[in-house]
């Protein structure tokens, strides 16, 4: 009595296919048929090894999907680190900016720097005598005008 199974392969046909499979003689269609036969859950115990084999290969055949997420995560971590280094460097640079240049020569002695700074400030405050300078200029202008008037009579 032939046992009809849903894939229309009998047990004897399946056995033959399994034997051909082990000999490496099965075609793609035959392997497909065999896989389909072995995917049934109601098969006898003697088919368990073959079911395991085909199940293993099926697992292996799962497509490995490339995930971009880890790459982006690592890129973000690298960006954070770079930004931190940049900020630290900037902060240190800013903090070390107390200096003076005198005739092109860099001075880092703080007391010298401060005395030069105060000297420049005293130029601004000490020279706040624009009235006096303005008057001097007016006097000079008047003197020149008087001298020129001497020649205007000719």
């Amino acid at each position, binding site marked *: 009595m032939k046992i009809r199974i849903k894939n229309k392969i009998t047990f004897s046909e399946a056995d033959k296919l399994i034997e051909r499979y082990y000999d490496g003689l099965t075609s793609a269609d035959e392997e497909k048929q065999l896989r389909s036969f072995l995917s049934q859950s109601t098969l006898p115990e003697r088919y368990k090894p073959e079911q395991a084999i085909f199940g293993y290969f099926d697992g292996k055949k799962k497509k490995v999907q490339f995930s971009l997420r880890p790459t*982006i995560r690592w890129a973000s*971590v690298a960006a954070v680190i770079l930004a931190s280094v940049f900020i630290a460097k900037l902060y240190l640079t800013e903090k070390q900016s107390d200096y*003076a240049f005198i005739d092109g020569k860099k001075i880092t002695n703080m007391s010298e720097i401060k005395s030069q700074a105060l000297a420049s400030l005293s130029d*601004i405050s000490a020279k706040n005598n624009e009235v006096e300078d303005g008057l001097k200029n007016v006097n000079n202008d008047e003197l020149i005008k008087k001298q020129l008037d001497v020649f205007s009579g000719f």
Partner: protein
Amino acid sequence: MKSIKQYLILPLMVLFGISPAIKAQSDLQISKVFDLYGEKKGVVMVELTDEMLDGYDFSLFKSLTILNNPSAADFIRKCLSKDEVGAKKVKQVVANGIPTSIYLQLARKGELYRLILFNETLRPEHKITLIYIESKNDSEDVLKLILKKK
């Protein structure tokens, strides 16, 4: 996707937060003066940050003293003519049609008040003084303090 955004937002926020505070005077034309003349012969350039200087509380103090260089004075005046746009001219002294003292109160940069002080004298020698100040104190108070101290 949410976690990726979290990773990227932090460095971006820090960078954008820090960048305006970096060199608040770099938007001014007078920064060119410091760059051009700062390390030349006959020039004294000073830069101090967050220093208590003889009672003055400056966040940034930059000064330039140039001797015997009339062309530098012309260049500084040109720079100041651009920087004074939007600024308050606290004082100007003109001699023979040429500004020899200019004090500018610039627009605030964040919390900082900013001042530019320019002075040119011809006697006893040709001397140019250019000062840029940033302070958390009101610039009028700073100016009064500077002019008061002699």
